[in-house]
Structures are given as structure tokens and as C-alpha cells.
């Protein structure tokens, strides 16, 4: 049945593509792309296997060749994620996250509201620093500790933390794989400081409003938590054992890594490197140094802390989405998009936010972004990158399968308590939070749009940097072309 649906939708898309006069290679790439998306929805556990087969079909039908596959795998994004995963593994062993959790459970006069506020902001800021999946693993552990001790149901607090984490993941380039994907593939690329300047403030606003909605929605559970905390306090009992943690080394590494990444722009300028080179290699360099320092554990970090399954899946998805660009399908979509919606950012921003939010609610947001970013590149308007980022991250809150953080947290919940969250149990609150946060993100982007650099200005900045150094020829792909200026509506 499910197999039939998958092939049925693939054939339907092929027929539609044929009806709009797409070429053979375009029809095949569209059809395979949709089938892989359907497979991730219908056969979640086989998603990597199906992605492998999909790549094989694309290559076998001559739609995708090996050099294009290697180029579109976006090995830069994968290397960045590997470096981050290894570093996070070391930080975990150094006790940094233990220290953070102990700080929370030893907070004086803890109340339900205070706890919820902490988990939302902690989840969001940790996502900003070390990615959303790592963040939710640690915050979920904190929630389990508190809920087990107080004998309250963890489900509402897991939902709250996941939603905070998803919103927070839009704050920096490190927050979500889609951040690094957008940053690296924007034309010209966006840097860490671009995210901090344009996305982080919007994230803070969205997070605060999301917290308000969640506190109201789960008010009964929060009240119960407050009561249990109060009675435990009266008995002078804590929320868990506390030990002295030598956290300083971990904290120095984390802060050092963030500073290293944050300064990538300046370092690249200084060393006359391609944009975002330092951004990509910073986690790798730090991971390498940490592996030399803790050489006995190095193999463990690579084998156990790096999520190879997920990374391979990402590579295959990037390649499949890249095929859409390679076969000019994304250009066709962008042209249609422009002809239907025009090129007014005021109209395109909400459309992209809501399309990417809805898409990300049901499909892995990285698939959606990988496929959509060439369209946004073609539209050549800076605010649309932020719209795509916000929509992809905030849309993850709408359904329980909307983001990797949701799936990881629900997996932990299921493993520990053998409880399942009903699709609609999540959707009821997810839809409300998703809608409100998308509206706020739209408002935020609209407010900041006039101050955002246009594509031409960003290209100018890049070319100015390279004109001042010896690497001009090597980086000529980043030198703006005249027609780019003409197409920039925000110029």
C-alpha cells in the first residue's frame, strides 16, 4: 500500500512535469526527488537505503553524473557537522553539560514557570551554540531528571523544550544544519555574523512569544510542577545529586570554538581565504586538536559521537536536491515563482516563510531547504534567505516529525517511559506555536529588511575584500556581475 502510494506520487509528478513540458532529465529528477521525500515520510527506517537507491537510479538514467554527485554532496556542510559532533562528544565527557544541568537543578526557589523558562532559553541557546539535536539531548535529560524526581509526566515539558530548541536553532549558523546549508549556499555566502545580526534578534523575539504561548497552553502542568517543587523544598530535598564538576576546560573550549567561528570573516580576510573557509574548518581544527589531546578516546569520538547514518542521509539528500538544480528544475520553479508572485520582498517573504514552514512540518527541513535554496538564490533578495531559515526552523514545531530534534526527543521519551505522543496531541499546540512564531518572524524580517544589505552590497563587500588581497583571480566567481545588480530589487 505504502509502496504503491510512493510510486503513485512519483508517477503523478512525472506526468505533471511532462505536462508542463519539462525535459526528460528534469522529469526523472523531479520524480526521484518526490519519491525520496515520500519514502522518508512512509518508510522512515529505510530512508537511507531508499536515498542510496534513488542516487543509483539518477546515475543509471544519466541524470546525475559522478562529478556532479561529489560536488552536490556538500561535503563542506558534512565536514562542519562532523567537527561539531566530535567537539560536542568531548565537551560532554569533560562535564560541561553536567555542570549546566547541575546549575539548573540547584537553582534556588525553583518554580514551574522558572523551570519552563529555563528549559526554553537553555534549549534555544544551547542549540545556538552546539546545534539543536545536541541541545535537546541534554535538555531532555534534565527534564527526565526533574520529572522523575517530582513524579510528574514529562511529555508537556519535552514538547516545551523541543519547541524552544527549534526556535532557538534559527538564531545562529550552528543552530541547525539548514543554517550552515543556507549560509554556505547563499549567493554570495552568508557568515556567522550575518546570522547573529539578522536572525538572532528575530529568534529572541519569536522565542519569548513562543514561551508565552507554551506557558499558557501547559499552565496546568506547570502549576502541578510548582506544587511538587514547593513540597519538595519544604522537605529540604534537592532535584538530584550534585557533584563538583571540573567544567572550566569544557567551557573554555566551547567559548573558544564559538569565538573562532564568529571571527571567521576577519580571519578569512586576513588570510585571504574563500568566504566561510574558516567557518567550515574551525570545528574540524578544534576536533583534531581535541582528538590529539585525548588520543585514547579519539576513535570513540569518531565512531560513536558522529551520527554517520544522519550525515550519509544528508549527503544523499543534498545530491538529489542538487540534481534539481543541475537539471535546471529549480530555475523553472524560480521563474514560475517570480511570474506568479512577482519580485516584491514584502509578498515573497511571508510566502517563503509559510511554504518552508509547511514543507518542513512534514518533510525533513534539510531536504526542503536543499531543494529551495537555488530558487531563493534565483530570486536574489537577501531577506528571503532569512525567511527560508525561519520558516524551515519554525515549521519544525508544527508536527512531531517536523525536525530532527522532535524525533530525537520523542525517541528518548519512548525509550525511557514507553509512552507515545499522539500526532494530534502535538499538532494542536504545534500548529498554534508554528503559526504565531511564523507571523512574528515575518514581522521581524519585514522590520529589518530595509537595513539588510542587498545582494549587490554583499557581493561588493566580498569583491572589495578580494581586490585588496592577492587572491583575486582565485576567487573571481564571487565578483559580482552586472546583471546581478539589475535583478536586485532591494538595490
Amino acid at each position, binding site marked *: 500500500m505504502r509502496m504503491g502510494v510512493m510510486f503513485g506520487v512519483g508517477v503523478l509528478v512525472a506526468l505533471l512535469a511532462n505536462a508542463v513540458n519539462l525535459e526528460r532529465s528534469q522529469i526523472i529528477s523531479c520524480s526521484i526527488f518526490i519519491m525520496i521525500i515520500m519514502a522518508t515520510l512512509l518508510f522512515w527506517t529505510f530512508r537511507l537505503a531508499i536515498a542510496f537507491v534513488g542516487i543509483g537510479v539518477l546515475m543509471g538514467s544519466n541524470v546525475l553524473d559522478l562529478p556532479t554527485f561529489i560536488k552536490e554532496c556538500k561535503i563542506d556542510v558534512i565536514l562542519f557537522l562532523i567537527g561539531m559532533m566530535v567537539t560536542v562528544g568531548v565537551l560532554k565527557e*569533560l562535564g560541561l553539560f553536567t555542570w549546566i*544541568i*547541575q546549575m539548573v537543578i540547584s537553582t534556588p526557589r525553583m518554580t514551574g514557570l522558572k523551570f519552563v523558562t529555563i528549559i526554553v532559553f537553555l534549549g534555544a541557546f544551547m542549540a545556538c551554540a552546539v546545534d539543536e539535536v545536541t541541545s535537546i539531548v541534554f535538555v531532555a535529560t534534565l527534564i527526565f*531528571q526533574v520529572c522523575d524526581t517530582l513524579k510528574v509526566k514529562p511529555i508537556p515539558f519535552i514538547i516545551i523544550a523541543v519547541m524552544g530548541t527549534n526556535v532557538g536553532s534559527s538564531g545562529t549558523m550552528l543552530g541547525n544544519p539548514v543554517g550552515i546549508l543556507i549560509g554556505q549556499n547563499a549567493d554570495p555566502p552568508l557568515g556567522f555574523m550575518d546570522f547573529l545580526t539578522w536572525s538572532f534578534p528575530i529568534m529572541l523575539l519569536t522565542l519569548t512569544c513562543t514561551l508565552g504561548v507554551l506557558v499558557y497552553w501547559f499552565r496546568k502542568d506547570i502549576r502541578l510542577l510548582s506544587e511538587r517543587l514547593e513540597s519538595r523544598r519544604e522537605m529540604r530535598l534537592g532535584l538530584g545529586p550534585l*557533584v563538583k564538576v*571540573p567544567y572550566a576546560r569544557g567551557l573554555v573550549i566551547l567559548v573558544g570554538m564559538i569565538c573562532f567561528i564568529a571571527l571567521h570573516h576577519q580571519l578569512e580576510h586576513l588570510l585571504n581565504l574563500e568566504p566561510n573557509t574558516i567557518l567550515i574548518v574551525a570545528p574540524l581544527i578544534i576536533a583534531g586538536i581535541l582528538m590529539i589531546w585525548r588520543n585514547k578516546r579519539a576513535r570513540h569520538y569518531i565512531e560513536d559521537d558522529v551520527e554517520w547514518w544522519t550525515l550519509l542521509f544528508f549527503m544523499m539528500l543534498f545530491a538529489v536536491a542538487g540534481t534539481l538544480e543541475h537539471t535546471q528544475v529549480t530555475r523553472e520553479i524560480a521563474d514560475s515563482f517570480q511570474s506568479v508572485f512577482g519580485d516584491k520582498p514584502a509578498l515573497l517573504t511571508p510566502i517563503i516563510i509559510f511554504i518552508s514552514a509547511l514543507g518542513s512540518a512534514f518533510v525533513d527541513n534539510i531536504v526542503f531547504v536543499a531543494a529551495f535554496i537555488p530558487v531563493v538564490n534565483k530570486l536574489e533578495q537577501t531577506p528571503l534567505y532569512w525567511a527560508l531559515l525561519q520558516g524551515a526552523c519554525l515549521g519544525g514545531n508544527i508536527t512531531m516529525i517536523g525536525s530532527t530534534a522532535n524525533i530525537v526527543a520523542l525517541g528518548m521519551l519512548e525509550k525511557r517511559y514507553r509512552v507515545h505522543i499522539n500526532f494530534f496531541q502535538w499538532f494542536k499546540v504545534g500548529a498554534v506555536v508554528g503559526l504565531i512564531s511564523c507571523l512574528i518572524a515575518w514581522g521581524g524580517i519585514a522590520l529589518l529588511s530595509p537595513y539588510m544589505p542587498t545582494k549587490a552590497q554583499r557581493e561588493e563587500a566580498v569583491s572589495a575584500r578580494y581586490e585588496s588581497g592577492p587572491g583575486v583571480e582565485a576567487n573571481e566567481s564571487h565578483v559580482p556581475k552586472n546583471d546581478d545588480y539589475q535583478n536586485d530589487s532591494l538595490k
Partner: protein
Amino acid sequence: MNDHYNGIEFSHLFTAAQVICQIEQTDRDGVILELLRLLALERGIGNVNDAYEAVLERENSFPTIVGSGIAMPHARLEAINDLVVGVITSQKGIIYPNKPDNPIKLMILTLAPKTAPGLYLQAMSSLAKICQDPETANAVSNLGSGEEIWKFFDRNGLVLPNYVLACDIMDPVQVKLHEDDTLEQAIDLFVRYGRIDLPVVDKEEELIGVVSTYELLRVCLPDYILWMDDLTPILNFEPFLEVLRNESKTWLTEIMASEFATVAEDAPAIQIAKELTRHNADNAYVLRGKQLVGVVSLEGFLRKVLRD
């Protein structure tokens, strides 16, 4: 293999000729040997010495005194293909080593084929009714002939069940905690009885949870502490000290697991294996309604099914 015994009467498993009535001898080992010789003559059980050693080995490890004055020694033998039963009575009482205050007046010896797990349990299950009656041993030992003894079993309509029930292989609950006990009492019982987990019951003796040593350890060493590679901060058991300080103030309900392996007393015994596996548990608790009536340990289950 066990199927053709389903529903047959216990009295069909032996004849009056397989009964030794009012034996004078009181030494357990000698009585067992006597009965085995008789069974060898009547039914053929292979080498008597092998059977004797098998029965004694089993009896020395786990004496099978099942009720007041009743014992059911047994063994599984490769030499036989059918269930063989022999009965022996004693008015003086057969004395078990280490159990001199419970003289056995009725001994039912069961020999089962090696490849028939649970057959002995089926036979024992059929005798549950008479074993529970404290007068049975005296009544049977007063009967003067093998014929009369056979008729006693026949009259009582003891039938081998189609399958063994959970209550047939459960042990009585010897140690349990109450809902208003503290962690201190739980730790005391864990240490004193060397148990892996302990059931917690409410005032109506209904099972409300289980406290396990694993959970206790998790309270002392939660996940966030175990993440650390460097255990220097806890080399002196600091988290345990914290728990010790609060043990008298910590209610069991705080560390009690509400998910545990349970089976109804009338559920097939195989259900116990399923529950033990599903919960990755060491003990399955047997319930009558919600009341705790017994416990089956993983070790006990395996022993009874694979060795008894």
C-alpha cells in the same frame, strides 16, 4: 510431548502396584531408593542408581516439601519416554535432612522424560488441591493398602491441566515494602536479603510498584553524572552520601518504577517468560486481581521449566 497428558487424571499415571504403603524406614534416601527399585521393576526406569543420584541431587539442592507432611521428589531421566509416578506413605514420618520438624507422611515421586519441560509442573499442578489440605498427609498415610491409596487419588478427580499456570510455579512473597516506607527501609531490605528488586504494596496488599537496586543506583548516579569521563569528582561516592543523608526523608514512591513484569495467577506460565523478557526484569509478580500473591524469579522460572 506433554500434550497427551493434558486433561488425564493423575490416578491414571500409576497403579496400586507402584505404591509402598506405610513404610517402616524413616531415612529419606533409603525410602527414595526403595521406591525407585519398585518403579524399576514395575515400569522400567533404566539404571536405578542413575535415577537415585538424579533425584537426590535435585532434592539436596531444592527440597520439594510442598505442604504439611507432603514431599514431591522428582527428576528428569533420559532413560524413560513416559511420566512415571510412585507413591510411598509412612505413619512414622520420613525425615528430611535439615527438616526434622516436618516429617513426611506422603511422598509422591515423579520421573519425567528429559525432553519434557513442565511435565512435572503439570503433575504437581494437578495435586495442588490435596497439597493445600493439611489433613491429606495424615489421611493417606492411614490407608492400609496400595489399592486404597490409588482410590484416594482417583476419587479426588485430580486432573493434569492443559498447561501450567503462573500460580503453579510462583513462590510466596517473603519480602515486600509498603507505600509509606522510605528509601532507608528499602536499602536495609536490599542489603539484608540480597534482592535485585522488591515489590511495593498498599494497605490493601495491592501491588503499586517495584523498587529495584538499579533504580537506586540511578538515583545516586543519574545520566548527567555518567556523561563525565573523569570520575575524580565522585571518587569518594559523593552522590551516594547525598542519598544517604536524605534516605529517611525520601519516600519509596520517588524511586519506585510503575512499569514492571506482572502476570495474573491463572495466566499460562509461559506468559511469565514473555513478561520477564519484555520488561528485561529479574522477577515477575503474580497477581490475583491487583493483589500480590506470589513472585517468579527468572532463575526460578528457568530452573523449574528446564531442570525440574
